[in-house]
């Protein structure tokens, strides 16, 4: 809790001060132990079960821990709060053995009961968590003893461990949740993370102080605790340019939120270091609502995919800093089907025109295509704001070249989600983070997930069956095979126009030791255990 963390910090600072004074150093290096991370948007709150924003996860990974952690390769599951675990032969029971000596920020000991409480709160219908499905079909979660948790599923769920690495599965303190009620994750927080919650001023900043007792960090870090800086301040700066300048002038020590256009300038700055994670697991795409008349023909959709020049978009809009996407998930993601590598649709304007001709959409004198007197003018719903505005306009330009008149309608984020839950558009723009093929496919292509997030209305019994098979697979091969088949189906049907995979790029001052970017849920700093001054 906030006050406890403060007290703990104060104690440490005091102790440190005494030592330093004894050593004859009267300066206050403690001040230099604070780092500021600038970012674009704030979260609506920091309740792990109610917040799905990346902004929330960034902080949650730091203030709380998960049972298992994810390695930098985004494929290997490593210990977290659980030092080891076993999976039963039928794949339905996971037994987690917890580390000893783990304490919450307020000093209370963490036990199996806390894990059970947190996970059950996640799936409790009363919590109304939009991400409860990520926990699988739970039969029960029980504390066998103080340090053992049994996670029992109704059906095997091959994704489970990956899902449990996400910020939705962090362990929180029941007493704090109940005491704060609606203010949990707003006025206070109590977790077991390397940093403790101090204070949040919405849309301004969020302060975290390090947890001095922390020594149970995941083994993916060299330093498993405690954290090596006293304080982390997450500061909201909506303007791209100001964020860039903040890092360049040392007002922010590290951030992943700098505009692509400035990365080259920053790389040339001798005081700064730009690093990148090879795993780009955040994909931008435009989806088709495939049962709408305008885009119901596969040929039309394929032609539109062929027309969009992802390489040019990546080069012109993003200064070559993003990875142009021809696949729906990163080709480096777990369970990506390598056989598809050669079958992906690449930009080919000529072929696009031919496909449309064959489908009966004839080019008229105004440069657009018509069929039975109807103009090929699909309605695209998009988020307002510079990123999507630019993307949609670029697509619009590409599509115009083959005679398609994309009708862009942009909405403010608060309204856009509602608008995109309707059936009134042909194309929609979206981006999302994922950890694996299964994660992405189960979310977007299940018939049960219409109208959202399956906004394409992709309803295919075979897909559902394959997804079930992949989900319930007991061995990686079966799982990869099932998901591979789904990937093949949806790519063939051209239900999305993949646009680009967003890489994780961190810009930091060289005063800090190099921080290795992680890409879990797009949160580059992950647990922040390797952040330290040189």
């Amino acid at each position, binding site marked *: 809790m906030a006050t406890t963390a403060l007290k703990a910090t104060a104690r440490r600072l005091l102790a440190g001060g005494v030592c330093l004074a004894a050593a004859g150093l009267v300066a206050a290096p403690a001040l230099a132990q604070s780092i500021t991370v600038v970012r674009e948007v704030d979260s609506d709150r920091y309740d792990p079960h109610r917040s799905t924003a990346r902004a929330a996860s960034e902080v949650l990974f730091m203030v709380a821990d998960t049972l298992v952690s994810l390695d930098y390769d985004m494929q290997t599951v490593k210990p977290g709060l659980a030092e080891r675990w076993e999976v039963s032969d039928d794949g339905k029971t996971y037994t987690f053995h917890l580390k000893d000596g783990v304490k919450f920020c307020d000093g209370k000991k963490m036990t199996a009961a806390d894990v059970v409480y947190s996970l059950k709160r996640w799936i409790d219908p009363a919590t109304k968590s939009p991400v409860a499905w990520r926990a699988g079909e739970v039969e029960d979660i029980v504390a066998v003893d103080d340090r053992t948790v049994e996670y029992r599923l109704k059906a095997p769920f091959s994704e489970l461990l990956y899902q449990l690495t996400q910020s939705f599965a962090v362990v929180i303190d029941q007493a704090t949740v109940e005491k704060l009620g609606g203010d949990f994750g707003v006025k206070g927080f109590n977790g077991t993370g390397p940093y403790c919650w101090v204070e949040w001023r919405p849309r301004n900043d969020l302060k975290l102080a390090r947890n001095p007792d922390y020594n149970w960090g995941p083994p993916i870090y060299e330093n498993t605790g405690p954290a090596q800086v006293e304080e982390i301040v997450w500061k909201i700066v909506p303007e791209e*340019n100001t964020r*860039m*300048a903040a890092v360049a002038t040392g007002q922010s020590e590290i951030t992943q939120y700098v*505009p692509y256009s*400035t990365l080259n300038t920053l790389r040339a700055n001798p005081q700064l270091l730009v690093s990148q994670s090879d795993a780009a697991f955040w994909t931008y795409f435009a989806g088709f609502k495939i049962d709408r008349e305008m885009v119901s023909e596969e040929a039309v959709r394929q032609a539109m995919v062929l027309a969009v020049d992802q390489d040019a978009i990546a080069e*012109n809009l993003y200064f070559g800093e993003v990875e142009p996407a021809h696949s729906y998930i990163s080709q480096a993601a777990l369970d990506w089907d390598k056989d598809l590598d050669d079958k992906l649709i690449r930009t080919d304007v000529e072929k696009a025109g031919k496909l449309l001709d064959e489908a009966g959409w004839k080019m008229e004198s105004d440069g657009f295509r018509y069929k039975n007197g109807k103009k090929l003018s699909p309605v695209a719903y998009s988020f307002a704001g*510079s990123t999507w*505005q630019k993307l949609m*306009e670029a697509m619009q330009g590409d599509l115009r070249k083959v005679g398609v008149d994309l009708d862009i309608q942009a909405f403010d984020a608060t309204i856009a989600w509602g608008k995109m839950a309707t059936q009134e558009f042909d194309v929609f723009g979206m981006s999302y983070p994922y950890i694996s093929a299964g994660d992405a496919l189960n979310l977007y292509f299940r018939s049960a997930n219409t109208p959202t997030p399956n906004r394409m209305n992709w309803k295919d019994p075979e897909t559902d069956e394959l997804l079930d098979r992949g989900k319930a697979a007991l061995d990686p091969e079966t799982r990869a095979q099932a998901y591979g088949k789904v990937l093949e189906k949806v790519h063939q049907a051209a239900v999305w126009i993949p646009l680009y995979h967003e890489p994780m790029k961190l810009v930091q001052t060289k005063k800090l030791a190099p921080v290795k970017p992680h890409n879990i849920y797009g949160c580059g700093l992950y647990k922040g255990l390797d952040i330290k001054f040189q």
Partner: protein
Amino acid sequence: MNATIEDVPQRRSAFRRLFRDGAALLALAVLAVIVAAALLAPWLAPHDPFATTRQPLLPPVWNEAGQWAFPFGTDGQGRDILSRLLYGSRLTLLMGLLSVAIGGGIGMVVGMLSAFYRRIDPFIMRVVDVLLSFPAILLGLAVAAIFGTGVTAIIIALAIATIPDVARVTRSAAVVVMGQDFMEAGRAIGLSDATLIRRYLALNCISSVFVFLTLRFGQVILIGAALSFLGLGAKPPSAELGMMAAQGRDFLFFAPHVATIPSLTIFLIVLCANMVGDALRDVLDPRLRR
């Protein structure tokens, strides 16, 4: 006393004096050039102001890397800044003009009615006092919050903000006119109220109002541009000077021209408008000095 006869030579000498004020004259000329350029934007603009090119952030020609094809360089999406500037000035000037005209028109009518019908005067002036309590920027925020952001919202807000001031100025001018003999005379020969207001009152108040509105024009443009800069005004991809400056802010530190050129244009327009307004006031209506 017949005011119209008296007025003519006085006004003529006023204009002569105005023409002797070199700085004001220069300002007027610059303003005229800008207005003409804005009006002729479709013919003058070398490029489509909305067409993106593959050359984003090209510097202006006075920079080594500049190209004559894009005299003022290109913005973040490779659009020609000069063309956007021409179209942008158009929208910005239109925004200022419309809000001043609408607000000025309504304000003048309110002010004249207030002076003409003394019975409703106290009531109207109280309403005006209340309206004066809302600064333009606040009205802008409120209107944007209610009707959503956009140029129309800004024009509404700026027009509303202009009404009370104009009403006051008109009223004080009109009260003086009301005391003149010709008003009595007009009434005596049976002219209707409407005719009296239109023919005599309006004609004699218009110069005060005009001077005031000229002075106001610059302020209105500044506030409008500020609201656009904050994202509450014109929406992309349309071009408006304040919004262009806001977009340029994304590249301020390594391509400052994207923000500076539209900002300087606003400065130039407002500066000229203010100088012309000042000069006009000095010669036409010294009473407004305070």
